[in-house]
């Protein structure tokens, strides 16, 4: 049969955003693929060159609508590296709580979107219900439901509100109970197993050479994690180890990538519970916004010739900011901001993964890599 190119996207349920996957098919078999991105390129890197260091957090929140907190934190660590700020320990603990809660919310969003992808609609409603609990907690911290704008250069916007620790403990223990329900919903569903097992194999060495990191990499049976190999924040103070999945012989398939995210949610919930217990000064004390215990003084200008960078474990892999100082207003603004998006690098690899499988497997394989187009196109 003659081979031909078909376009999946920009408006296809598989894409989870706005992009095109061009697929060359021979009958039902995928022979070649070519991703085409850039539909929602907003030029964030250019806009950042005309904003001062505190204003940029707002833009970084909007890089990924499902995982806003991790992106603004990724920026803030690079900015603090550039400006040379020492952050109070309590603020680091509060950040860790915010980031890990966001990681749970992001993985739940992924699980909720992946279910309908491969024919399990119930799970979407269940996941969004649990995500609501995380969003309520994050709303208490940041004040809004989606784009929190929570971290500040030198600390955080505000302390944990009264009763936050109690509510967080309650909701997380409820969540840890309920996550077993999801596992049974997925692991005992024949349709899910048929569609996710044995498709989209990926080997760790190949993934690392292609620049794929984070949960997708750990699904292959290795425990590389930026939080332990290039430690930042207070991850070194807590008792934990990254979740690792035992993959099948041919490499990690879609099912392994689902398992690893469930494990990571449990992991993150435990990290939050530990951080609440260990927080210096106790989780129930409250400091006014701007108190030196939660916000250190930071210079507003970065001289020319300085630079800051930071690798950060985002919900989807390794995100990174590189900032060169010395822009307009005698260094008030950055000269150049460069953003590394994990999914921008993962999408070409995921597209290679589906070669040799059937067209009907494309949503299962693409969805399992957790694409987010907001951060991809920047």
């Amino acid at each position, binding site marked *: 049969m003659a081979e031909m190119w078909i376009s999946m996207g920009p408006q296809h349920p598989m894409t989870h955003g706005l992009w095109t996957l061009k697929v060359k098919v021979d009958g039902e078999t995928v022979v070649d693929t070519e991703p085409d991105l*850039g539909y929602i390129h907003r030029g964030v*890197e*250019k*806009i950042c*060159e*005309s*904003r*001062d260091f505190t204003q940029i957090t707002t833009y970084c929140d909007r890089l990924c609508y499902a995982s806003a907190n991790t992106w603004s934190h990724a920026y803030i660590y690079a900015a*603090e*590296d550039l400006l040379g700020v020492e*952050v109070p320990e309590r603020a*680091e603990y509060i950040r860790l709580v915010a980031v890990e809660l966001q990681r749970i919310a992001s993985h739940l969003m992924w699980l909720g979107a992946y279910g309908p992808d491969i024919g399990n609609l119930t799970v979407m409603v269940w996941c969004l219900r649990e995500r609501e609990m995380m969003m309520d907690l994050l709303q208490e911290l940041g004040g809004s439901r989606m784009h929190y704008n929570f971290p500040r250069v030198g600390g955080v916007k505000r302390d944990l509100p009264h009763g936050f620790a109690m509510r967080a403990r309650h909701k997380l223990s409820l969540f840890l109970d309920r996550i077993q329900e999801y596992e049974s919903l997925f692991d005992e569903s024949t349709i899910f197993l048929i569609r996710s097992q044995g498709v989209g194999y990926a*080997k*760790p*060495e190949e*993934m*690392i*050479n*292609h*620049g*794929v*990191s984070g949960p997708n*990499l750990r699904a*292959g*049976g*290795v*425990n*590389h994690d930026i939080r*332990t*190999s*290039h*430690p*930042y*924040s*207070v991850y*070194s*103070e807590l008792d*934990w*180890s990254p979740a690792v*999945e*035992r*993959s*099948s*012989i041919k490499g990690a398939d879609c099912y392994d990538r689902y398992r690893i995210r469930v494990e990571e949610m449990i992991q993150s919930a435990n990290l939050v519970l530990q951080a609440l217990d260990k927080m210096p000064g106790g989780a129930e004390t409250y400091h006014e916004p701007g108190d030196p215990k939660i916000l250190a003084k930071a210079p507003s200008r970065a001289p020319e010739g300085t630079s800051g*960078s930071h*690798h950060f474990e985002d919900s989807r892999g*390794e995100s*990174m900011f*590189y900032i*060169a100082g010395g822009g*307009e*207003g005698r260094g008030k603004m950055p000269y*150049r901001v*460069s953003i*590394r998006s994990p999914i*921008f*690098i993962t999408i070409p*690899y995921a597209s290679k993964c589906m070669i040799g499988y059937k067209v009907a497997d494309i949503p299962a394989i693409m969805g399992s890599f957790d694409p987010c187009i907001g951060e991809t*196109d*920047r």
Partner: protein
Amino acid sequence: MGVVSEKAQLSAAEDFASALGKMEGVVSSVDKRSSGTQIRPVVNLIISPISWRNVAESLRADHGVDYCSMITGIHWPDADDKQWEVIYHFLRTGVKNPPILDGVVQPIITQPSKLKGAEMPLEIQISIPLGETRNPEVASIQDIWVGADWNEKETWDLVGIDFVGHEGMRRVLQPHETPKGYHPLQKQHKLRYHNFEEMYDDVQGFKRKPADSERIK
């Protein structure tokens, strides 16, 4: 299980930097950066564009640098010593395929706190300054790290730095029909509302001409 040891990582970084410093056209140093509880060493390399390809091959083959994180291009029209700069961020992760025993995959669970020497994860930042030219170019490393492929595409698309030897270069973030030679992150292209103070006095920009209205693109 913990995280990597600060001391071991620092000494691994210093060993790495001194080994690289012996190569031709390389200036190496170790930056001690801090974010959170631990010192974070970053190996800093400044490499001349001619020896870059050589050094890149040696990084992959002899030093186990297996992960290309990000490529950044910077346009410095007003700097004295360079007009362009390409900055690479690499990680040494040491990831291996897990072994298979009796038909079952055995996940590799390394103990980060016990890693040392060549297994130690490292952060590497490489800067390649380029002189005054209208057509900046460096050697492509697409065939060494496949992860560099789309990074190079993006850097060419937005900054206009050419990667010699890159196969299949095309626009990735901008529309395919973008005029040839238009790369928005070059500094001659200004944002209209670039002035911070002006932004609040004249929000809609009625009083102002765009700063680049008389410039030739």
